[in-house]
């Protein structure tokens, strides 16, 4: 029901503005806005951290074949196996293979024929033919990789 303009309304006393009192609608809304902005900011952080994390590695071949003739008796060869360097040795007990990444600080170990051991050039870590630490700072043995020989082929993993 519309009220005609002419009908005088009882003059409402101007509501005195409450002195910025704690609580109240305005403050509530401001808080909501603040909370939303914070949530938005944190929400943006998540995809950014995930973006920076490398995508699951295209694992790299989990089965690597090498021609046996590539590695002379007593020698070694470094190949990529599952995306990381692996070292294959043609030793007295046949072919052996290890993840070549030193367990200390990530350098790549070498096979030392004269000492029949793996040697890490970074801090002098040494490992025997089973991958066990025999000297230097590495805290853990080298991780072995299964090797099989089939005719002229040496097969890692698989």
């Amino acid at each position, binding site marked *: 029901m519309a009220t005609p303009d002419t009908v005088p309304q009882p003059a409402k006393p101007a509501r005195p503005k409450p002195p910025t009192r704690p609580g109240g609608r305005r403050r509530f809304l401001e808080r909501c806005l603040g909370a939303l902005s914070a949530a938005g900011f944190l929400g943006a952080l998540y995809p950014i951290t995930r973006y920076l994390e490398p995508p699951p590695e295209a694992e790299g071949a989990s089965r690597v074949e090498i021609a046996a003739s590539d590695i002379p008796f007593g020698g070694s060869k470094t190949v990529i196996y599952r995306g990381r360097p692996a070292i294959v040795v043609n030793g007295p007990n046949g072919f052996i293979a290890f993840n070549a990444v030193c367990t*200390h*600080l990530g350098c790549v170990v*070498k096979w030392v024929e004269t000492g029949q051991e793996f*040697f890490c*050039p970074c801090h*002098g870590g040494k490992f025997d033919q089973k991958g066990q630490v025999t000297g230097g700072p590495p805290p853990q043995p080298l991780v072995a990789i299964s090797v099989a020989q089939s005719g002229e082929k040496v097969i890692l993993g698989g």
Partner: protein
Amino acid sequence: MLTKYVRGVNHWLKDRLNHSVSGVNRWLEDRIELSTLITFIQTQLTKPVPKHVNWLFSFGTITLLFFASQFLTGLLLMTYYKSSAESAYDSVKFVMEQVRFGWLIRQSHAYGANFMIAFLYLHAVRVFFYGGYKKPREITWLIGFLLLGVTLGFGFTGYLLPWDQLSYWATTVGTEVAGSAPVIGKYILLTLRGGENVTGMTLTRFFAVHVIVLPWLFVFLVSLHLVLIRYKGISTLDSTKGPEKSVEDLKQEGGKSFFPNHVMKELLVALLVFTGMLIFIVYAPLPLHEKADPFNTPVGVKPEWYFLPMYQVLKYFPKLVGIIGTGLVILGLFLLPFLDRSPERHPARRPVATTLGILFVCVAVILTILGALAETDRTMFGTRYHFDTKGVPHGIAESDSAAAPPTSTPPEKDMKKE
């Protein structure tokens, strides 16, 4: 002479602003209140520095000048650099060998990094011994420490960019150290490297951080650092119990005007230092080693000298103990103003702090020397020595140096690679 000249110029400018009807001046004055600005700059320039301020107090400015120089040379290098594992090495070689003055720009950037960090270390040591980090300058110290972190970050990320053998393996080991941190280590490692190994993915990350993230951070932090220094002035050697000295007090005690007195001192040091760098560039240019080979770790991989003390310390302790221990020392230095609560600034009046400081510097220098000697063979007093990874010398006969500790020379023929 110069002072007179500057005063003359100032006078002339003021004169212009106050009395001339020059349209341009009036116009500017109406918009940016030029005279307020000039008064402000003038107050800043003539602020007295405390009487004890000597040339050791120029190290901060020298660091800043090196940053400016790095900014310029870095920009120039970027015009030829290609940030991929395939072409990075060749593009740096190209700059060195084909581009006119390419050698100068690259060497200036490479040496500049070393000089900047050296002067930053010296600056922090200076602030320590003069008690400059005490109340009310704690925040200046905290920000300065972050600047140190940013600058070392520049060094770490920049070192990888040429993609040569040393940079590749130093980065492998360096990221592995960071990745050994408890709990978040693995995430840090993968995120830094962009994968399990150091690859072209690592290179693009490091490049982005080196040329975008760190420069902006640096500019932001250094602005805060400088504003705080201007705001509080250089500290005196008095106890922090008394009130801070006012400009008048400083003047009365014989403090000289910042400009030109102190600025001229800094300019002189800057000229000497940059000339020194030029001599190094010409007589001992930094090499570009062989291109990175992810299958073949060279012997004696070491980080740059400015990380050596931390790196060497890791060799004497189990991995985790070393990393946590070093981390705690760094945290302690960061929070120094809150740990060292004595009110005295003068080094002689805080003997414990001064002694500890001297010890700390000595230990850092000794560790650096041990780190530099480690895994090298040297002849001293007629005997040939092999220094093992811990920096301990072992005498070796000239003839059997190859057969001696296997650390010295792993037989070449076994370094088979693809």
